């Protein structure tokens, strides 16, 4: 009993250290995003006489993306609770939903990019579009790496079931996912809502 307690105490400490390390990474990532936001805020009017965000963006699409990502952040949280309870089926269900929502978010985003590029609004068109593609694209790359990470973890759980290492991995993963949702709130506000304000 004592040994078991000690073991679980060690596990908890390792989790805390991993969580803190990951948190430090997230904060540096946040700094990088803040610089991209500053660049966008400065350059968003520099269209060289071309179309502005109001003419290029779609508000309902941005809302749809926001709701998808918010819901996926919520289901990732529920998945983590299921993992702490040790329920493999629930973990697979909730993170499965999170994965599908993340994938559909990425689909809508890439679709938006493809439409813009097809109409001739590319990264090279003007300073506004350069900063837009870089800011939103960097977030999209984070979502992509989060999805790859999620797929790998879910595959592992499917094969081996839940253990304390996987709970820690899922905790870090959902932290990452919540973080991406928080960054998206600001993209939704500063990029999309502001274009129509």
């Amino acid at each position, binding site marked *: 009993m004592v040994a078991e307690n000690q073991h679980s105490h060690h596990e908890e400490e390792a989790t805390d250290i991993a969580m803190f390390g990951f*948190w430090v990474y997230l*904060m540096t990532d946040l*700094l990088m995003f*803040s610089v991209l936001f500053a660049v966008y805020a400065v350059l968003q009017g520099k269209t060289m006489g071309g179309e502005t965000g109001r003419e290029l963006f779609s508000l309902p699409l941005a809302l749809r993306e*926001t709701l998808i990502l918010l819901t996926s952040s*919520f289901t990732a949280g529920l998945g983590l609770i299921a993992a702490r309870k040790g329920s493999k089926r629930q973990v697979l269900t909730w993170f499965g939903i999170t994965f599908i929502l993340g994938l559909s978010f990425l689909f809508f985003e890439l679709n938006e990019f493809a439409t813009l590029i097809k109409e001739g609004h590319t990264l090279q068109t003007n300073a506004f579009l350069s900063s837009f593609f870089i800011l939103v694209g960097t977030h999209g790359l984070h979502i992509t790496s989060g999805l790859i990470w999620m797929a790998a973890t879910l595959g592992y759980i499917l094969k081996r079931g839940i253990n304390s290492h996987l709970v820690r991995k899922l905790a870090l993963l959902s932290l990452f996912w919540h973080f991406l949702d928080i960054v998206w709130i*600001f993209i939704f506000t500063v990029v999309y809502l502001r274009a129509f*304000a």
Partner: protein
Amino acid sequence: MSHEHQSSQGEHGSVKSYVIGFILSLIFTAVPYYLVDNKIFSGTKLLVTIICFAIIQMIIQVFFFLHLGRGPKPLYNIVFFIGTVGLIIVVVGGSIFIINNLHYYMAPNELTKRIAEDEAIHQVEGKTTGACDSIHNSHIIYLKNNKLSPTTVKAVRCDTLTIINQDKISHEITFGSHASHGSYSGIEEFSVPKDRSKTITLNQNGTYLYHDHDYPTISGEFTVVEK
């Protein structure tokens, strides 16, 4: 074990906290969307409002999704978070402030016009800038004993007007009449120090008055016509 399980639930958040966070986030997404979509109000007021909603939603998610502040103590992650937010305020706020200042003082159109006139760049890629390409004639006005001679000048565009101050004091020359001040080619006034001269290029047509506000006897006019 069951006690430990419960405490870990408290630290990491329960279904309830995720549901509350989710519902609040939905509200704080829907309200700014509604405000912008229906143009309830506009301008800076709307911008500040939607950014406030975003910040509140961030705080909601930090507490209900990330469960910041409910981890093991001491709360290094909160310290790190606050430090990062401070850096972000400096980086984002500072960048926007500096660039807006640059834009304010170096508005491209005015700057281009000023450079074109100072450097006599009369055309760029086939477009005329309004600046003169060469000087045709020089008109000289002497300023002595608080009097101008001559007081009237007739010139064609792209001539120059030079005022030579032979007084022992410096003079501030202002465009327009004493009663109502005006400007010429973007200049409102200029100073001519004692024993020095000031030359302006006449690149704007019309009749203009100029005077020294402190010495009413100094007042003259010039007329510029197209050559």
